[in-house]
């Protein structure tokens, strides 16, 4: 391995030459994210070019093995790449649940053919994945899920309903938890399978949220034929895959963008409320609330750093991901509440060009789901109480 400093230098030069100027501007929101997939329409030539170039280097998934479309980087090198991208404000060339969730699960539990067939299209942004976990009667008690997979020799027949499937209407494939043994104890009758969304019998219906938007769908399976080679890991051992993947999901929610990454609470408040003669925010109560929030946000950011530093390279955060998920999402909600207080009456706008159709109000409402999706705050606290503190079961 070349020295890290030599690698940093190489990365810096390459990024300078290859990252289009447009891709160094801050993302303005959902519309600037490149998700990829069969039906993907690039928003700009720069977005297409940036993805193509990064795919050539394997840097859409820097730590995956080269044979599967990755960059084969060590974790120290990946850190350098992220730092250098951060330095010039380079956007991620591609985001997807294939990268953040399915990929790590396949690398750990998939067989050789699955890795060969499914990982490279994820790395290249050709196939967009969605996640089929929750069901109408299986939320926090996920393991009680009822979508059935019945063995028919060389294939399963899958029937049932998933809910909160993010972007199911835009995805090409779905990875799903299904009940493959109805008689076994609930954690031991679950399997993890991959289903092509174009299979006959799959349909989706968008769910309108309180924010007025529909990032989620209900997904229906009506006797969908799924080849047996789409099973990941062993039959009836899908819960192990699911748990591993949930840790990744929590980590990415906990470490992911927050209100403070997207908007500056302080700037919004100063713009809306103004300053007193002493230069302080004119509303002393709001100022105190924001100051305490800033203290907490700072301490959380440092904790993310510390957990990352303390985790051995290449290992996940384990139960600590529940700490970050809980604190990060609760803080995010608090930030949006304060932004709404700062925005006051103007924050109530909903369909108005000058408020970008009530962007703040819609983000505020959307943030309420943060402490529910990917495991509720209460489930996170259960995990911490049992796994970290060792408190006895009820």
């Amino acid at each position, binding site marked *: 391995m070349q020295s890290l400093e030599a690698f940093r230098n190489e990365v810096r030069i390459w990024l300078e030459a290859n990252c289009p100027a447009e891709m160094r501007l801050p993302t303005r929101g959902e519309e600037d994210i490149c998700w990829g997939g069969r039906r993907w329409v690039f928003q700009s030539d720069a977005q297409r070019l940036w993805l193509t170039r990064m795919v050539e280097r394997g840097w859409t998934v820097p730590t995956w093995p080269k044979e599967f479309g990755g960059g084969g980087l060590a974790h120290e090198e990946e850190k350098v790449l992220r730092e250098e991208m951060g330095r010039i404000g380079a956007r991620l060339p591609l985001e997807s649940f294939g990268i953040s969730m399915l990929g790590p699960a396949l690398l750990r539990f998939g067989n050789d053919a699955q890795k060969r067939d499914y990982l490279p299209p994820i790395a290249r942004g050709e196939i967009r994945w969605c996640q089929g976990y929750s069901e109408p009667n299986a939320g926090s008690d996920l393991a009680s899920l009822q979508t059935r997979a019945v063995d028919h020799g060389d294939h399963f027949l899958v029937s049932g309903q998933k809910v909160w499937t993010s972007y199911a209407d835009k995805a090409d494939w779905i990875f799903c938890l299904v009940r493959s043994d109805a008689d076994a104890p609930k954690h031991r009758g679950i399997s993890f399978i991959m289903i092509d969304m174009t299979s006959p019998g799959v349909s989706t219906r968008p769910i309108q949220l309180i924010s007025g938007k529909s990032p989620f769908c209900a997904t229906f399976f009506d006797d969908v034929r799924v080849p047996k080679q789409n099973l990941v890991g062993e039959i009836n051992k899908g819960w192990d895959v699911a748990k591993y993947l949930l840790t990744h999901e929590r980590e990415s929610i906990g470490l992911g963008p927050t209100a403070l990454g997207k908007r500056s609470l*302080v700037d919004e*408040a*100063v713009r809306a409320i103004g*300053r007193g003669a002493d230069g*302080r*925010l004119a509303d002393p109560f709001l*100022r*105190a609330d*924001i*100051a*305490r929030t*800033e*203290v*907490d946000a*700072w*301490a*959380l950011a*440092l*904790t993310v*750093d*510390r957990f990352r*530093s*303390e985790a051995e390279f290449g290992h996940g955060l384990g139960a600590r991901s529940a*700490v970050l998920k*809980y*604190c990060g999402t609760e803080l995010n909600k608090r930030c949006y509440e304060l932004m709404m207080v700062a925005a006051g009456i103007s924050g109530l706008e909903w369909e108005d060009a000058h408020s970008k159709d009530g962007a703040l109000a819609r983000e505020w409402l959307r943030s309420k789901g943060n402490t529910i999706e990917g495991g509720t705050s*209460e489930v*996170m*606290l*259960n995990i*911490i*109480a*049992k796994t*970290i*503190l*060792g*408190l*006895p*079961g*009820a």
Partner: protein
Amino acid sequence: MLMLTPEQVQLADSARGLLDERAPVSQFRRLRDARDAVGFDRDLWRTMADMGWAGVLVAEPYGGVDFGFVGAGLLCEQMARRLVASPFLSTAVVAATALRWGGSSAQKSRWLPAIAAGEAIVALAVDEGRKHDPAATALTAIPGGNGYRLAGEKVLVIDGHVADAFVVAVRTAGRPGDLDGLTLFLIESGSPGLNVDRTVVVDSRNVARLRFGNVPVDGAAVLGEVDRGANLLEVILNAGSVGVAAELLGVTAEAFERTIAFLKERHQFGRPIGSFQALQHRAAHLYCEIEMLRSAVLAACQALDADPWTAGPLASMAKAKAAAVARLSVSEALQMHGGMGMTDDVDIGLFMKRARAGAELYGDANFHADRVARHRGF
């Protein structure tokens, strides 16, 4: 990297070993109940000095080990877990910082080797009113003779009752409310006109009140610059705030761990009370808050090691967080211990008292949150 080095982990381990043996909480209780005149164990302090603790922030040429603030913070945390009475915070953290960054070479030579050897105790005298507010300093220096005469009062002077010298914040110009016009003086105890009264405070920490009745001082006693002592004072208080934040982390973590153990052993309704979700969730929330505090304290210590003159915002963040988390931790600890927590026999009350006093020392959560806000420009 926001993590401890192997050397730092080793320091914390050796501190744990020594303090478990020589200074359990029962030792602190004995000193409190006996109304001990010194208020700490001088033999133990000598041992700590032999191990390099007293000189943890003193440079090697002056006899210290110069282990840095991360090390000092770990020692503060470990001592606070056992409520160890010692001059560590006042002398090894606060006064050593004052001399290191503000002392003349004569002052350094006179005091730093003595501090590192555990032979001198030096105390900071800054507060006067109900709340920590350095700008409000009213203790006045009146020019006269070869120097000044000091008149006024100081409160909450940690280890003041046994100090050999004091670092005193004095108004030499301007008026109370101004940060300009402050000067720090290094004054030996026993100076004529200086009265030292030990004060008994809620957490039984060693504290004194000082009365300055026209105490004569000359120019050689000035620490740093005349009228422009505010910057040096800020560095000293940054160190003090982070030291107290590290102490509060110790108090918080100890109260929490004892509470978790209690939740597992105490049975009601035929099962351990720790099996009740109402308590589990509160405990888990508190755990998260303590993790945040641990990161804040470590980052603030690292910032002080990198550059104490610019560490103010992180120091304030850490102190604000520490005061808030400590209050939550000891409140939950007491409530979860039930009636036992209200008794003096159980140590939880001692941690609660220390958390309250620590929150106030060198600025409370509001004082420091205000500083964070001003740093962030609002």
